[in-house]
């Protein structure tokens, strides 16, 4: 079965610091990749997605992620974080699970705390 690994459980950064959150998945076939964000007290929202094409994808609020197929990775980056980026971030993968169905699998999440 496919799995998604997020290596950092909790990341604490000062404002203006650069961010990189790791995400690796285990699946040898075609994947669609996502990063979701959950701000305190809010529901999950899509931050960015990768289906095909340019492996460097840009999302909302200055976030970007790079798909490296050889490393089975889809790391999230932001050059300069803000206090408002404090949230929990989830990496997710859609894989084909047979009979015309697709399965969405999430990582365990990384909590980001940005200190003003």
């Amino acid at each position, binding site marked *: 079965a496919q799995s998604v690994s*997020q290596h950092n*459980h909790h990341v604490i950064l000062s404002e203006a610091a650069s961010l990189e959150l790791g995400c690796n998945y285990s699946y040898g076939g075609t994947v*669609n990749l*996502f990063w979701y964000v959950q701000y305190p007290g809010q*529901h*999950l*929202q*899509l931050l960015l*997605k990768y*289906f095909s094409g340019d492996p460097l994808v840009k999302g909302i609020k200055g976030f970007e992620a790079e798909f490296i197929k050889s490393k089975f990775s889809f790391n999230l980056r932001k050059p300069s974080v803000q206090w408002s980026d404090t949230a929990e971030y*989830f990496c*997710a993968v*859609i894989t*084909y699970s047979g*009979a*015309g*169905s*697709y*399965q*969405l*699998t*999430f*990582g*365990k*999440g990384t909590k980001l705390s940005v200190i003003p």
Partner: protein
Amino acid sequence: SQTIHQWPATLVQPVGSPLSLECTVEGTSNPNLYWYRQAAGRGLQLLFYSIGIGQISSEVPQNLSASRPQDRQFILSSKKLLLSDSGFYLCAWSVREATEAFFGQGTRLTVV
């Protein structure tokens, strides 16, 4: 536009009581539907997913069950709740062609 409704937002139930959480999607047809449980530090655990009416796949054996009586309705149930069923339950939908999922607001279930 598509919307997803999930209710109730919060629920406190005694151990041994039944459970029924409902999720409906509007503005789309034949969606994939999902139930997830979110626990602190454990991310989102896929409980059930459905590709069509009456078609339910269970990812984790447990005290819960799911049903899809209509195309855009997905119900999470239990006959007898356990303390360990407490958690935050999320319903989500996606189109069948494997695009992103859209989430409901979630239900905070506390079993006492």
